[in-house]
């Protein structure tokens, strides 16, 4: 699946998007896999309460299943307007 990062999540991880091969069942499982990769991922995902997630461009939750999902995006709370 494609994993996208925005705002300070993008800056901490150092890239805007990447292709990730995973068998993670839920968003939380995917986060655990990413955290285990490198310090920059662990730093970006240190506090999930400071993050939001979208699945296929719809806001979702960290306990949501990833079955059939093609695009996952992680970002801080939005500041539009």
């Amino acid at each position, binding site marked *: 699946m494609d994993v996208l990062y925005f705002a300070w999540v993008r800056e901490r991880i150092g890239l805007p998007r990447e292709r990730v091969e995973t068998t993670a069942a839920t968003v939380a499982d995917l986060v655990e896999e990413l955290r285990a990769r490198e310090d920059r991922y662990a730093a970006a995902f240190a506090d999930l309460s400071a993050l939001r997630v979208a699945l296929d461009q719809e806001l979702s939750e960290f306990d949501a299943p990833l079955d059939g999902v093609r695009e996952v995006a992680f970002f*801080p709370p939005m500041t539009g307007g």
Partner: protein
Amino acid sequence: MRISVQEAPFELGAESDAFAAGVNNAGALVTFTGVVRDADQGGLQAMEIEHYPGMTEKALTAIAEEAMSRWSLADALVIHRHGRLAPGERIMMVATAARHRKDAFEAAEYLMDYLKSRAPFWKKEILSGGSADWVAAKDTDEDALKRW
């Protein structure tokens, strides 16, 4: 209903006139415009607005459709810019048209409350001296959604 996510500046007067010309029998037109203000500590050089292409348009469309269904609106318009903006530049505008002003005012407030917290934009303040800070979301913005 029109949603525009764009880097280019927009003309407030021209957009308002075009919006007004497109509606029939609306006794009330409300517009709101957001402008880049200085940082709390001063010294703002620029504001950079990042967004999530694709999701941004979908989220704004869903928010505007919800406003159209909740209030008796003749039309609604949302324009939101992204990219690098200077202090004083216009960031975004919403416009609503209705037979009566209550619907137009309330729907415009609803649009603003939702697009602040539910449309995927992120603001970064670039300060003189070169430092930069991501603007943090406020609890009051999230609380503002509860009244709807």
